[in-house]
């Protein structure tokens, strides 16, 4: 088979033209005949009961068709919570009773002739509650703390040796608590659902990173067969984990459309998105990290506390990653769930690694200062080729090479190893470093690949392009493997009429989809090569069929002899060859493919039976702290990553550039503020929930190292969606320490925190 390059050409996106002309159709852009418009009404209390819901005023608004409340809402058969093997974002179903489990819970759905009437009527729904005092977050009365290993059979806390004993004898120990804030995804595209019935067949247009899951979830909740539902999401306007699970609105909208006998388009406001879908929960960490006199790590204890809702246990358990970062000899970990009266949290870009690696990478920096070592040197001293927990080798692990290249690009040798010692333009300057990582994960994938004799190819897979470049990289894979030009490849995604693709989560999409394409492409090659080599005539007659590849629109043998694709197809007697292929990751049994079609997710990776697979990176940042305003700026960032085969250097670059921007957000901007009296999000909009803007990001430099990893999967691809925003928050916090002497153990870092520094 033709080889794909280790670092693929930076071809512009094949869907670029659609995106810059407004022709890319996102879920809410699809037109349906004569739609009715729906709006949600959400609760203003976090815990209690609805005493009465008065929809009479709302019903009088001209154009209102229906107001659904718990008294008349369609009955929804809840499908299981994602964490329990289902598709649902949370186990609890709103609008099925009077109980209020969190602030901003859906309590009514208004459907009207126009968007304006629906909005007005939504304001006119009046609720009376019997409220109870809610617990909002850590430390509030009424929260319940449970040890994950005690409440979940699937949860195990990674452990090796005797960390507590080792730490007693360690020459240097850092013992600290770290905290990360509540974050919301805030994809630019708002949540929406458009439901259109034609007879007993339902079409759903909804922004999704898992169309098969959405299909299964909606069908399950409506009690109809899955094949009666089609989900379309060819373009998703950002997802970051928020559009992977099935929220309550989808089935409600579909049920309303069925009852009203017309298409219904529900547009969710940004504020409502904060409470009717998921988010990254706040976390706390207790870290103990010890080293002997020369900086060799001897023990590591990582205890994590994660906020979750009352009904659901959602945990990210990032200790699974932190324990594998260095050659820890002794490790003890524990994860606990803290329940409060909140909506259920969920996956948000690098769900486990963003909070947990912040804690580890901050602690490593603290230890370096304590020992008096360069923080990068300390990391490299403790690099490991084997997984400290399982003892198995890492497939590839270029931590050292990443840091060395990053140091060079950054000019790390200019660093003065003293707090507050560097200044420029009257500002304090700090350098910070951190390790980035992400487990290489895979999921089953099916694809249909078509090659025409005229040299056109088509890839059909219900994968998703959530900004990740999926259209382009899958086209590049097909073009490279089938030997046709990139502009001759068409890609169809985001539609349950296509073969089932992987969920776009856990950075599995490219690796899994390209592996499936490789399987299909090999079948196509073999058909053509067999016909050509077993033929009585033609230039390839009698050649070894294994040596024949598809290249530049030709079928060619190793010695260069070959024939044009058109001739090869003539021999086959067909104009088109189509192959459907199913690909399963190592150790996944065949039932997983049926599961994929039925909306069940099987993701494997990280620590495997015989190996451990991760991608790695080194991130170095400079911060400048203004001594008068105390504002913290990040004038430059350098990231060097090793993540297996890179399909497209440009789209891959964009992924990690964007990830690092997220890291700046995590460190300096993003926090969903909670009014603890009411367990209510206060800044539930995109002006007061701060995200980095253009002016916050000045200079970014990134590079990918070549990495040939034949073990991770067929494609040798490791995935990139999440790697870039791991560790960045710690790198920024570490740089702030270098500049000011203020150790930020809690992010985001605020100006008032920096006031605690003696240098400003």
């Amino acid at each position, binding site marked *: 088979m033709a080889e794909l390059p280790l670092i693929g050409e930076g071809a*512009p*996106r094949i*869907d670029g*033209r*659609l*995106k*810059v*002309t*407004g*022709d890319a159709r*996102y879920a*809410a852009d699809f*037109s349906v005949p004569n739609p009715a418009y729906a*709006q949600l009404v959400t*609760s*203003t209390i976090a815990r209690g009961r609805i005493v009465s819901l008065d929809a009479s*005023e709302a019903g009088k608004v*001209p*154009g209102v068709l229906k107001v659904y409340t718990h008294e008349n809402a369609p009955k929804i058969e809840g499908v299981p919570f994602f964490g329990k093997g289902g598709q649902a974002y949370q186990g609890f179903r709103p609008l099925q009773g009077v109980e209020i489990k969190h602030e901003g819970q859906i309590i009514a759905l208004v459907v009207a002739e*126009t*968007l*304006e*009437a629906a*909005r*007005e009527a*939504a*304001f006119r*729904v*009046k*609720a009376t509650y019997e409220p109870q005092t809610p617990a909002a977050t850590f430390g509030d009365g009424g929260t319940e703390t449970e040890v994950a290993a005690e409440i979940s059979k699937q949860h195990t806390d990674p452990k090796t040796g005797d960390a507590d004993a080792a730490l007693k004898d360690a020459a240097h120990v850092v013992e600290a608590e770290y905290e990360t804030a509540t974050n919301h995804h805030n994809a*630019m*595209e*708002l949540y929406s659902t458009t439901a259109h019935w034609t007879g007993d067949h339902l079409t759903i247009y909804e922004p999704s990173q898992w169309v098969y899951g959405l299909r299964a979830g909606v069908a399950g909740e409506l009690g109809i067969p899955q094949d009666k539902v089609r989900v379309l999401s060819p*373009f998703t*306007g950002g997802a*970051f984990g928020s559009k992977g699970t099935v929220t309550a609105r989808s089935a409600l909208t579909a049920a309303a459309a069925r009852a009203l006998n017309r298409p219904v388009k529900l547009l969710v*406001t*940004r*504020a409502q998105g904060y409470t009717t879908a998921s988010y990254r929960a706040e976390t706390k960490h207790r870290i103990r990290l010890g080293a002997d006199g020369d900086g060799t790590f001897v023990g590591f204890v990582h205890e994590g506390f994660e906020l979750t809702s009352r009904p659901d246990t959602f945990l990210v358990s990032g200790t699974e990653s932190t324990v594998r970062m260095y050659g820890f000899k002794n490790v003890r970990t524990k994860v606990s769930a803290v329940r409060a009266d909140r909506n259920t949290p969920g996956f948000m870009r690098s769900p486990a690694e963003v909070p947990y690696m912040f804690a580890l990478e901050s602690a490593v920096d603290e230890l370096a200062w304590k020992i008096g070592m360069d923080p990068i040197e300390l990391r490299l001293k403790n690099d490991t080729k084997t997984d400290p927990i399982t003892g198995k080798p890492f497939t590839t692990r270029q931590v050292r090479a990443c840091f060395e290249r990053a140091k060079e690009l950054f000019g790390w040798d200019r660093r003065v190893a003293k707090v507050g010692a560097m200044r420029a333009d009257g500002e304090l300057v700090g350098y910070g470093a951190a390790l980035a990582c992400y487990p290489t994960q895979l999921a089953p994938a099916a694809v249909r690949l078509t090659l025409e004799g005229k040299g056109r190819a088509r890839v059909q897979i219900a994968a998703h*392009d*959530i*900004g990740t*470049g999926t259209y382009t990289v899958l086209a590049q894979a097909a073009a490279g493997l089938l030997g046709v030009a990139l502009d001759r490849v068409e890609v169809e995604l985001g539609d349950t009429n296509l073969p089932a693709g992987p969920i776009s989560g856990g950075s599995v999409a490219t690796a899994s989809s390209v592996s499936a394409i490789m399987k299909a492409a090999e079948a196509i090659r073999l058909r053509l090569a067999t016909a050509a080599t077993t033929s009585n005539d033609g230039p390839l007659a009698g050649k070894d069929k294994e040596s024949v590849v598809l290249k530049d629109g030709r079928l060619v043998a190793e010695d260069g002899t070959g024939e044009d694709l058109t001739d090869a197809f003539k021999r086959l007697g067909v104009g088109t060859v189509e192959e459907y292929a199913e690909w399963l990751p190592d150790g996944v049994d065949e039932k997983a493919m049926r599961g994929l079609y039925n909306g069940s997710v099987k993701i494997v990776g990280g620590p495997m039976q015989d190996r451990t697979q991760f991608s790695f990176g080194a991130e170095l940042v400079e911060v400048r702290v203004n001594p008068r305003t105390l504002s913290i700026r990040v004038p430059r960032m350098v990231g060097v990553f090793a993540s297996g085969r890179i399909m497209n250097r*440009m*789209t891959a*670059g*964009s992924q990690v*550039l964007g990830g690092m*921007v997220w890291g700046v957000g995590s460190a300096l901007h993003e926090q969903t503020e909670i009014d603890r009296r009411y367990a209510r999000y206060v800044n539930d*909009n995109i*002006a007061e929930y701060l*995200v*980095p*803007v*253009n*002016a916050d*990001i*000045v*200079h*970014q430099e990134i590079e990918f190292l070549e990495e040939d990893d034949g073990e991770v999967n067929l494609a040798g691809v490791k995935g990139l969606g999440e790697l870039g925003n791991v560790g960045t928050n710690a790198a920024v916090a570490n740089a702030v320490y270098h500049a000011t002497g203020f150790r930020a153990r809690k992010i985001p870092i605020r100006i008032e925190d920096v006031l605690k520094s003696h240098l400003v």
Partner: protein
Amino acid sequence: MTNPTPGASRREFLSTAASAPLVAGAAAGVLGGEARAQTTTGAAMAGGQVLVTLKVNGQTHRLSLDPRVTLVDALREHLGLTGTKVGCNHGQCGACTVHKDGVRVLSCLTLAVAAEGSEITTIEGLADGDELHPMQAAFVQHDAYQCGYCTPGQILSAVACVKEGHAGSDAEIREYMSGNLCRCGAYVNIVAAINDAKTKMGA
């Protein structure tokens, strides 16, 4: 000009419809805000329609609209021009940016009736036939996007940024493009695309 239909008094129209988006912009949450029970506002609206003539991308459209319809909703829900995106409905994100008489405006904070008599340009009207506007081409070339949802607004803002003379330096571009959020974080590529396009735009 607008013609409120009989029954909807001019005074009522001005005091409710026209003020609502301003309130929404300042206090985040009246017309475009989330509906929360118990927080019923007094923004009672007459049900009457108004005739609005909109000139979009050189085409004239006559629409009968609820006077509360915003420009973005008129474009998307009434004219099928879905290239303009809604990211917040509060004027916070810039995704709905269009040109009104060549000036960048937030179409979620502009009532459709207030756009009457103006030349509106949306992303669909920027290219010259099959030939992309230099800014569109530069966005493709520099991968100045990822998910693409903020892109129409970014591009219209970028074109205006150049025409305003606010693309003199990287720092100036960053500042004058900061009203357009890109959650994917494509900022450095957006700046590169604008630098590239500005020369081709003759700026």
